[in-house]
């Protein structure tokens, strides 16, 4: 067992759907947790309807987002509205150590699956409820996506150009931030349980978790009374600090000078020694003040260069620079290849497809993507037979009752 996957002994009953919740249990599945994921046979998981699609073609299993969030999990189809499904849920509950759910508050209570009800069956249960705004408060009923939690938490107002409307971070930002907090909460609660035998209920507001990514700006307000706002690509510490046009359509290179000596190296690299000797530009503050002039000089050089060539040239002079990469360029990025970022998996209906690889690399027991995301109900039979040890008669009876849709 010594070199088994790190979480090989962890069992999770997963009611989560869409993005933020499933991304968290995906991390734990990579590390070896057995995740039995309940999916409704009738109400489609929104993530299954979202781009990007395998072969650019919509279909019940084609969403790359769904595939990415649910790889490595066992999928069981269960009609939670069917009263006979309760016995399956409670048997899974007895099997699991952790129950996770990401519905809007009240849904679990309506089914009788809230923490107080479940702990009567399993007193040491660890249960996580994650939703946009948390289980309580005037906005707890707000349901939706991470772009909504990001907007109401200040992220949108802090992204874009000062002279334009807020651009907002791309997509459902808190759905990317909060899954890490969900996953670490579960792991810490499991450790506490191992030592004390005590379970607990975890109420995660994705907005509240995500605010930790804005802490310096929040403190700037609570301490200094300053309301930070979007500032394009300028930085409070460094200058130049920007994204410059490169040869080609929508091709760009990001360049940052983190010291005065890097600035002088950049001047030499772009053959503008005159700027290096300009005393107005000797400090970051001076360069920020004259950023229009500097950006023009840098752009004149980058426009003549390919983004990749400019990156290599500047990095060879120890100047922080990187081409701005889209998916196609990241797929060719030798560093991402070295890290094994794209993992090919065999999907039961799609055939060969791709998901992102695990992020933290563990040297002795590395995480592994063990399977593609399930189609609806792909592992129902497997779970009933091998996890719940139901006999054939019982399974036939439940099927006839319509429990699995």
């Amino acid at each position, binding site marked *: 067992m010594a070199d088994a996957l790190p979480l090989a002994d962890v069992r999770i009953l997963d009611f989560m759907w869409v993005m933020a919740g499933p991304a968290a249990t995906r991390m734990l599945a990579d590390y070896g947790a057995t995740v039995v994921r309940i999916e409704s046979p009738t109400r489609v998981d929104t993530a299954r309807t979202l781009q990007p699609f*395998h*072969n650019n073609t919509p279909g019940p299993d084609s969403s*790359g987002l769904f595939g*990415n969030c649910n790889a490595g999990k066992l999928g069981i189809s269960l009609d939670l509205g069917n009263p006979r499904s309760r016995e399956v849920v409670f048997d899974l509950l007895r099997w699991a150590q952790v129950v996770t759910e990401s519905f809007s508050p009240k849904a679990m209570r309506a089914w009788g699956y809230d923490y107080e009800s479940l702990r009567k069956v399993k007193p040491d249960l660890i249960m996580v409820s994650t939703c946009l705004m948390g289980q*309580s408060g005037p*906005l707890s009923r707000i349901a*939706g996506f991470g772009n909504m*939690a990001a*907007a*109401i938490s*200040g992220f949108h*107002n802090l*992204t*874009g150009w000062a002279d334009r409307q*807020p*651009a907002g971070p*791309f*997509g*459902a*930002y808190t759905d990317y*931030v909060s899954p*890490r907090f969900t996953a670490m909460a579960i*792991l810490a609660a*499991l*450790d506490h349980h191992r030592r004390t035998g005590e379970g*607990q209920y975890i*109420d*995660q507001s994705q907005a*509240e978790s995500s*605010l930790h*990514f804005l802490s*310096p700006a929040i*403190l*700037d307000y*609570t*301490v200094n009374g300053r309301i930070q706002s979007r500032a394009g*690509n300028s930085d409070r510490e*460094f200058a130049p600090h920007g*994204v410059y046009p490169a040869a080609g359509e929508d091709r760009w290179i*990001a360049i*940052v000078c983190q010291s005065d000596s890097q600035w002088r190296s950049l001047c030499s690299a772009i053959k503008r020694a005159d700027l290096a000797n300009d005393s107005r530009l000797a400090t970051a503050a001076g360069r920020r003040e004259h950023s229009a002039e500097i950006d023009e000089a840098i752009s004149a050089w980058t426009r003549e260069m390919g983004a990749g060539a400019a990156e290599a040239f500047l990095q060879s002079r*120890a100047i*922080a620079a*990187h*081409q*701005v990469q*889209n*998916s*196609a360029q*990241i797929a060719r990025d*030798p*560093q991402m290849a070295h*890290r094994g970022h794209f993992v090919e998996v065999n999907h039961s209906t799609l055939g060969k497809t*791709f*998901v*992102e690889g695990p992020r*933290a*690399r*563990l*040297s002795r027991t590395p995480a592994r993507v063990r399977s593609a995301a399930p189609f609806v109900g792909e592992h129902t039979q497997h779970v009933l037979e091998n996890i719940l040890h139901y006999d054939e008669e019982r399974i036939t009876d439940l099927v006839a009752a319509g429990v699995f849709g």
Partner: protein
Amino acid sequence: MDGLSAMGMLSPYRVLDLATERGVLCGQLLGDMGADVIKIEPPGGSPARRLGPFVNDEPHPDRSLYWWAYNRNKRSITLDIDRPEGRELLKRLVPAAQFLIESFNPGDMAARGLGYETMAALNPALVYVSISAFGQDGPKASYADADLIIMAAGGPLVLTGDDDRPPVRLSVPQAYLHASADAAVGALAAHHESVRSGRGQHVDVAAEQSVALATQSYVLAAPLGSVEARRMSGGVKFGPLDIPLVWPAKDGYIALTFLFGSALGVFTRKLMEYVCARGFCDEATRDKDWIAFGDQLFSGAEPLSEFERIKQIVMNFTRSHTKAELLQLAVERGFLMTPITTIEEVVKSPQLESRGYWRTLEHPELGRRVTYPGPFAKFSATPLEYRRRPPTIGEHNREIYCGEMGLSEAELANLAERGIV
């Protein structure tokens, strides 16, 4: 030891936090969950203390709000690990620690003789966490890096901003926060395994990979054979469609998801019923097939001009209401919209107030109480506690070197005199 931490989920564990400004969030997360985190800083103080903003905009290493943001629940000692005696002192701390976190340039710790193999020889169960821009090895491992550079490499940047301007980042640096949060998860997974096997390991986190999560899986577009998404101010371009996610209100902006398909079309139908009832569109517009509408646009069955007309209708509706009115509608009717708020509005949010989110910590050295973002989740049995304000430089030197490691006052004074602590 810290008596208050006895109830924390990770209270039996000690973390040696050598992270630079890149990785300070990781140790704080473990500290918030109860671990005893010792922040080990160079004698002049951590480089994170040089990052602003500062209290009253006066630069001072104990008044960096960046430092405050990510170093609560830690004790601080100073130690020069570039000197042999400093390294020996660090090694004395290793056997009793469960975690070590570092975020130097890859190879820097090994060059000091403090790499994973050396530390594992002193403590085989140690979980040794390295946080870097591109990972510990590989063709770009030694690249010069910064927040903007990582966002460019990992995918979020090209998707963010206005289509007629360069891609733009979130103005508050994010890349290393994503990496530090991933590192905390990896560290706890490795720790879970070490309890079983008695052996630790090296956890290597690359921020380039961490930020790729912030592309909503569009980083997979090329491998999947899908078209790429393209940036658009407050939205996204996908194929022929300009899809806005930011909409105007009477007094600012809101985020509104106005999409189609079997899951989202239901919400759009509900919204259009209301928009129609309020007189902003005719019944024929209201009664479109909102589930199929997206497919119809892609196939050409509905012209793009029709989408533009409908966006104008919805915009006329949102623009005629205040942010507060639209939020109220979201609560009452389940519309997928929220106001775009300033940091001030966030801090004054009735929702966060009602959940008792905010925490204050006393800063006696400045004679003031400071409001911090509160616990990242509510734990019923082991609530996260803010036990310590961020430490001043070397605040716990005596407590740890003398009180816990058994150095005499004279030895400590001698180390200080020679600049080792």
